[in-house]
């Protein structure tokens, strides 16, 4: 481990660091073990009946039932279908927003900016409720519409930042060879901005996937509702914990694989776009686009110079 912050450790420091490391591992492992044992211990419930521990087979035997897995699978499909449809619309809305915000006419630019600020400042959940109650669309489309609009606004800001960070010469060259302003934007600026912002956009899509769980609250039967509400209601509350752990594992598997994909893209497209455009001198996101839940995850997309 080389870092500018401390000297290359000598034999003594290395030994000490190894000792602390081992102690740290033991500490973490100890706490985990204690948690596992504590959850595994049978415990009496309020009415005097003794509940078997979490690792008892009777708390897990529902998972031999094919029907459980079929329901969970349907939940996953419902989640994915909401996320997929919302992602497509979010991309379209994002492109429209980015064009509106970087339009030449004030009459387009200013209203777009106001709408963007409005949308970004509201909770997605409130938007879902609004669409559900006002337009009576049903839970699925309320979820899709709210997610698409909210994430579209954020993707739009990312794209606008991408367009803005391009050298002026790109636009000037496009106009100079006789392209119309719109054609310049579509054929010269937009492709570059999109490629540069791809990691942020994918990170935002991870957020979108995560946020489909909000549709649980407006009553859509996606993975969360099926897994932690419907199934435990049906099979009994003693399975609540087991179902929770399984649902957590499914969510982690979906989101982590998408996050890793985002990071892979970031690594692959990082140096290439660096040639096209001077990279930012700092690693912090410079633009206001970070006022989202998602764009923090781009912190990892950074680059060299980590301590």
């Amino acid at each position, binding site marked *: *481990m080389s*870092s*500018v*912050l*401390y000297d290359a*450790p000598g034999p003594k420091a290395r030994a000490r*660091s190894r000792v*602390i*490391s*081992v102690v*740290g*591992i033991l500490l*973490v492992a100890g706490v985990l073990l204690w948690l596992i044992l504590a959850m595994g211990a049978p*415990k009496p419930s309020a009415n005097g009946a003794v509940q078997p521990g979490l690792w008892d087979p009777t708390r897990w035997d529902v998972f031999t039932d094919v029907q459980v897995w079929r329901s969970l699978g349907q939940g996953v499909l419902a989640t994915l279908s909401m996320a997929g449809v919302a992602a497509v619309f979010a991309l379209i809305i994002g492109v429209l927003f980015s064009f509106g915000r970087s339009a030449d006419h004030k009459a387009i630019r200013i209203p777009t900016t106001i709408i963007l600020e409005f949308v*970004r*400042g*509201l*909770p997605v*959940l*409130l938007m879902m*409720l*609004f669409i559900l*109650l*006002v337009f009576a669309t049903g839970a699925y489309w309320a979820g899709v519409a709210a997610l698409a609009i909210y994430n579209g606004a954020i993707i739009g800001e990312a794209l606008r930042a991408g367009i803005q960070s391009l050298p002026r010469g790109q636009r000037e060259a496009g106009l100079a060879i006789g392209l119309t302003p719109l054609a310049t934007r579509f054929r010269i600026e937009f492709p570059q901005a999109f490629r540069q912002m791809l990691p942020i956009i994918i990170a935002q899509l*991870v957020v979108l996937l*995560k*946020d*489909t*769980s*909000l549709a649980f*609250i407006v009553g859509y039967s996606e993975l*969360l509702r099926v897994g*932690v509400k419907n199934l435990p209601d049906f099979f009994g*509350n003693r399975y*609540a*914990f087991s179902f*929770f752990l399984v649902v*957590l594992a499914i*969510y*982690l598997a979906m*989101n*982590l694989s998408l*996050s890793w994909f985002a990071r892979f893209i970031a690594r692959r497209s990082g140096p290439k776009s660096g040639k096209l455009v001077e990279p930012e001198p*700092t*690693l*912090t*996101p410079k633009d*206001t686009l*970070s*006022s989202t*839940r998602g*764009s*923090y*995850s781009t*912190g*990892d997309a*950074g680059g060299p*110079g*980590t*301590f």
Partner: protein
Amino acid sequence: MDAVIENLPVFLEGFKNTLGLLIFSGIGALILGVFVAALRISPVASFRGFATVYTEIVRNTPLTLVLFFCAFLLPYLQFSPPFFVLALIGLTVYTSPFVAEALRSGINGVPVGQAEAARSVGLTFGQSLSYVIMPQAVRMVIPPLINVFIALTKNTSVAGAFFVFELFGAGRQVTNDRGDEVIAILLAVAFFYLVITITLGQIAARVEKKVAVLR
């Protein structure tokens, strides 16, 4: 419109609770986040590993699931403070890795040359962190940190679905009573959220501008 005016005390009660959630879980997340960030840059490998795993897991878990755990499964484990406290725990845990990441990216944003210069004049790890890197990093960290708190403001709405009476819960209750004025009621709720988020956003923008001049 009169549905909004009649129920103004309800909205204000919700607004108060939203602010409470924001402030308390914000402070909690800040403390936990500083701790996680410190673990993530520490020289001890096992601490770094632990912090990385924690960050990855919490960041990829939906907030709804975290709050569900707090509201339903913690009481089931015979730990049952009021729902407000349970929601605070959930929001704190969920926000802490985002705080940690904002801090870490701020520290990484300080040019390496600064650290090299500090080290080459003979400052130790602790000294170069506290005299050279942190004063610069703190400035760069404030805008992304405010953005984390804006996100937290919006996230408090999820607590409204888990028995905490905050703005979203207030809006839901009032729309149940007055189904005829849904639009006005929800716009009123939106207004209260925007009061917090836009103010914070303006502060972030101003600080960002100031920092940009300083650099």
